[in-house]
C-alpha cells in the first residue's frame, strides 16, 4: 500500500497542532528541514519538540512560533554556537514563551529506548548531581532497590510523530538510512506515527535486498515523502555534504527578530515548496555540495 504523499499532505495529516514531534534525531546530519519548513508554512502551533542536539531546525520552529515546549538536550547552531530564536523565546518570550524539559543526549535517548522496549523507564547514573533532573518534570531521582545507590529513572517517552530523513525508501516506508544515526532508530520505534523524508524512492526489492540496513518496521510509517535535498543544509552521507556557510549566514542574519523574520520569509514563507527552495539555492551551490568521491560498501551476500 503506497504511503507516498506530498509534504504538504503529510504535515496536514500527521502533525496537528499540539502534537509532540521527534525530529532532528541524527544529531548534525539528516535533518528533515523540508518537513520543518512545511510545518512553519502550515502555521502549526503548540508543538512539543523532542530531540538530542538539535541544530537550527529547532531554532527555526521556535522562532516561527510553532513551539510550546522543548524536550531536548541542546538547542543552538552546532557549527556557530548559539540559537538566537531559542534565546529570545527563553529570555524574552519572543515570539512566545516556551517551556523546557532539560535532557542530556543520553537521557533523551534512554527515554525513547524505554518506550521502544515497552519498559516504563530505564535507570541511569548519568546527570546525577547536575541540575538537569530538577528541571525536567518527567525525570525521577530514586534509590536502586538492588543496592541503595542513587539512580535517575528516565521514563519512557512516546512522541506522537517521529520525522526522519533517510537516503532511500520504498513507497511502503521500508527504508535504508546509513552513516550517522543518532537516536533515529529509538525515536522511530517509540513513536505513534512516523513520517519519512527520502532522497530517493526505490523499488521494494532494493530495500529488501539488505534487511539489516532497514531503519525500522514500515508498519509504523504513515507517510513517505520524496524530497531530494530535503535535509539541506545538513549532510546526507553518500548524497550531499553539509552546507556550512548556510549555517553561518543563518547565524548572522538571525541575531535580531527582524533579521530572523527576513530570513524566514526569504527561505521558508515565500517558497511554497521544496522545489522552489532548490531553485533558489541554485545549481552552482548544489554542485558544490554533491558527493565528490564515491566510496561503496563492500558486497554482502544474503543468498542461501
Amino acid at each position, binding site marked *: 500500500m503506497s504511503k507516498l504523499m506530498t509534504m504538504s499532505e503529510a504535515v496536514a495529516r500527521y502533525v496537528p497542532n499540539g502534537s509532540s514531534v521527534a525530529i532532528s534525531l541524527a544529531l548534525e546530519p539528516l535533518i528533515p528541514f523540508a518537513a520543518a519548513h512545511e510545518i512553519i508554512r502550515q502555521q502549526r502551533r503548540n508543538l512539543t519538540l523532542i530531540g538530542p542536539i538539535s541544530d537550527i531546525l529547532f531554532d527555526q520552529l521556535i522562532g516561527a512560533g510553532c513551539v510550546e515546549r522543548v524536550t531536548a538536550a541542546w538547542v543552538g547552531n552546532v*557549527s556557530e554556537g548559539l540559537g538566537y530564536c531559542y534565546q529570545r523565546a527563553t529570555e524574552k518570550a519572543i515570539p512566545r514563551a516556551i517551556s523546557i524539559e532539560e535532557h542530556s543526549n*543520553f537521557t533523551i535517548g534512554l527515554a525513547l529506548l524505554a518506550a521502544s522496549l515497552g519498559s516504563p523507564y530505564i535507570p541511569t547514573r548519568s546527570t546525577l548531581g547536575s541540575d538537569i533532573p530538577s528541571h525536567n518534570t518527567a525525570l525521577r531521582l530514586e534509590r536502586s532497590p538492588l543496592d541503595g545507590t542513587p539512580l535517575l529513572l528516565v521514563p519512557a517517552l512516546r512522541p506522537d510523530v517521529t520525522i526522519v530523513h533517510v537516503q532511500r525508501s520504498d513507497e511502503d516506508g521500508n527504508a535504508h538510512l546509513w552513516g550517522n544515526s543518532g537516536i533515529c532508530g529509538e525515536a522511530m520505534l517509540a513513536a505513534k506515527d512516523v513520517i519519512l523524508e527520502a532522497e530517493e524512492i526505490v523499488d521494494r526489492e532494493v530495500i529488501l535486498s539488505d534487511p539489516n540496513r532497514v531503519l525500522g518496521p514500515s508498519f509504523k510509517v504513515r507517510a513517505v515523502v520524496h524530497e531530494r535535498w530535503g535535509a539541506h543544509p545538513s549532510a546526507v552521507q553518500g548524497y550531499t555534504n553539509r552546507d556550512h556557510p548556510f549555517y553561518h549566514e543563518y547565524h548572522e542574519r538571525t541575531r535580531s527578530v527582524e533579521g530572523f523574520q527576513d530570513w524566514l520569509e526569504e527561505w521558508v514563507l515565500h517558497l511554497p515548496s521544496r522545489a522552489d527552495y532548490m531553485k533558489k539555492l541554485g545549481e552552482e551551490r548544489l554542485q558544490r555540495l554533491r558527493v565528490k568521491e564515491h566510496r561503496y560498501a563492500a558486497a554482502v551476500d544474503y543468498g542461501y
Partner: protein
Amino acid sequence: MDYTPQELMVVCAARQIQDGEHVFVGMRLPLLAFALAKRTHAPRCLGLFEAGILRDEPAAELLYTMGDAPNITGALWATGTVKMIGLMAAGDVQLGFIGGAEIDRYGNLNTTAIGNWQKPAVRLPGSGGAADIASLSQRLAIIMQHDRRRLREKVDYVTSPGYGYPGEEGPAGAAWRERVGLPGGGPSALITTLAVFGFDRENGEAVLQSFHPGTTVEEVQAKTGWTLRLADDYTETVPPSAEELKVIRECDPQGKWTR
C-alpha cells in the same frame, strides 16, 4: 616559536591523552588534540563521538560537526548515540573532553543558563552530551576561555557535574560524587587560555599546575573568580614543540579553530 593560545591549548589537551586510551572527543580543539596525540605519543588511542562514531584515525578533512560525512567514512563503527554513550556508562571511556560557558573552583560546569533558569539573563544551548561525559567518563578534561566571568566562585547552573560542593553531608570532591551516585570520574584537568589546572579529589578544588608563557600567576588570579590554590610544583606551561605545531597546522590548515 610563534603560536596562538588555541594551539597551546590543543597541545595541553593532547598531553592529557595516554596511549591506548578511549577518548570521548568533542569538536574543535579536543578533536585537534586527539589528532595530535594520535600522531605523536598516543598512536593507539581511539576516539568516540556521541553521534555514534568510533574511529582510530582522525577524519581525512577538517570537521565542522562530528556528524560530517568525512567523520563517518572509514570509522571503525558507526552506530547510534545510545550505544556510544552506553560504552562510556559501562566504564569503557578513560577520558572525555568538554567545554563550558562557566566553571567554578570545584569543576562544575554551566552550559545551560546564566542567571535564574526560569527567567535567564542569558540562555545557553544546554547539555548535549556534556553532562553525560562529565558523569560517566573516568577522567574529564575541560577546555575554556579564561576570564573572570567564566571562572566563577559558583556557577549559576550545574549542567555537567564536577566535584559538587561541600555541604552538611560532607566535602566536595570524590566523596561528593560518591554521595550523588557518580562513583569515580570527575575533572582531572582544566585547560584555559591562560593556565592549566589539576583537581584535588579530596576536596574537589582546582589547583593551578602551570601558567602559560606570557602570563603570570598574578594575571591568572586577577582573571579568576576564586582564590587560586597553587600546586607545590607549579610552573610555566611547556610551549608547543615545532613538531606539535606542524601537526596542528596540517590538521587545521586554514586556522579555522586555532587562529
